């Protein structure tokens, strides 16, 4: 148990360190999120009523896309320099490695979105009552995005045109998260109870965390054979 935890911690810290050495990559997905969210009012018009209605969906679609933007590189760098093969040789279960990498991915792409989402609430002139639900739904839902995405990243590892294929495989699987995540924010707008949405988002995250590492490590083994 202790060893598993140590391996987990080492890989998370290593991935974070690597990311901080190349900060643009983290900032890129964050600014992608901000830019995509800002494009919608420019294209649709700035009427407050419209913005109010589209905000939940826009925030979540932008979150899906920006989370997917860096997914391709989740395993690619380690695959290219052979580190991934070394990781496969570890005596600990491969799921731990996968969990650690997903955790690092979430810390670098999911958590910043949660923290920056109040800015979006200002842009879309949402009420104060919707800011916290937006942050909660992103906090509960984005880990599932990272985990489901990891399965796709492992399946398409090292393929030509992997990025487009990855989005084709992963976006349909993201739909439940999108529906309940946006649902929670929309429910908050009318002061409807949001508890059910949070519970469903939490359930999706827990379910993906339970089954995702297994599927991802199986996919990694098949990709590296």
């Amino acid at each position, binding site marked *: 148990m202790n060893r598993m935890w140590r391996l987990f911690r080492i890989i998370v810290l290593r991935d974070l360190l690597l990311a901080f050495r190349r900060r643009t990559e983290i900032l890129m997905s964050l600014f992608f999120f901000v830019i995509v969210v800002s494009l919608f009012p420019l294209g649709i018009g700035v009427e407050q009523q419209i913005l109010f209605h589209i905000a939940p969906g826009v925030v979540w679609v932008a979150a899906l896309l920006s989370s997917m933007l860096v997914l391709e590189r989740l395993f690619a760098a380690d695959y290219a320099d052979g580190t991934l093969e070394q990781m496969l040789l570890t005596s600990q279960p491969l799921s731990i490695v996968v969990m650690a990498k997903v955790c690092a991915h979430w810390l670098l792409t999911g958590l910043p979105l949660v923290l920056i989402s109040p800015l979006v609430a200002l842009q879309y002139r949402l009420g104060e009552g919707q800011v916290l639900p937006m942050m909660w739904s992103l906090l509960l839902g984005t880990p599932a995005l990272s985990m489901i995405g990891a*399965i796709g990243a492992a*399946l*398409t590892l090292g*393929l*030509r*045109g992997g990025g487009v*294929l990855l989005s*084709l*495989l992963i*976006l*349909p*699987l993201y*739909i*439940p998260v999108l529906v309940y995540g946006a649902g929670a924010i929309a429910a908050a707008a009318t002061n409807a109870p949001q508890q059910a949405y949070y519970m469903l988002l939490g359930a999706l995250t827990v379910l993906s965390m339970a*089954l995702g590492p297994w*599927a991802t490590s*199986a*996919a990694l083994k*098949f*990709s590296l*054979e």
Partner: protein
Amino acid sequence: MGINWFRYASPASFYPLAGKTIPWFVASAVLLAIGGLYWGFFETPNVLSDQKQYYRIIFVHVPAAWMSMWLYVVMAGWSLVGLVFNTRLSFMVAAATAPTGAIFTFLALWTGAFWGKTSWGTWWDWDPRMTSELILLFLYIGYMALQSAIDDVRRADRASAVLAMVGLFTIPLIYYSVNCPDPNQCASLHQRSSMKSIESNILWAMLTMTLAFWLYSFAVILKRVRNIILEREKYTEWVNELPEIRSQQVRS
């Protein structure tokens, strides 16, 4: 004396078996489809007014939707068998099932759109069951895309098997998508229908069509498996000694 379950897991023994059974599946599928459609279109009692005869598309729509879900389960099932027992043929069957499943999913969506246009005046509505069926179509497409994107057959089989099993969550989603807790929140075009409340003639015509579609699936999937076998095993001796391959080699 035990049964040798793995006898037909070898492509060399499965290939002739599939060839022998395909004509039977084709013939029974055609007969059942003719019978089911005739029964459904002309012999079921008129329970609805004359303007509502468009409902008869149900004899294609519902069986196609059932088959689209069932074939996904079949595909994921063979993928699991392939991963567990490491049998090449299981992956071939899974790969051969995907296009037929995708066609049935598309057929269900398309006939549903016609039905929706005539009865509710809209081609598409974001009803939960339609949406989840659309997700199923995307999953079939993703499966086929992944299969064809990987050149190495072994990796392609395994990777798409994992994907098929991950996507299995949509099947209960589609099945339960009519149980809407609050009709004001998710207005559903698909009402909850229990088997008992359907008029028995309509139900039996529908079940006949389902069986016809099922036998059709058997026929085309077996045909496709035979083609995949020929393609993947073309360097083996037994394939080159097949009479149909020999006659082609002589001609060319």
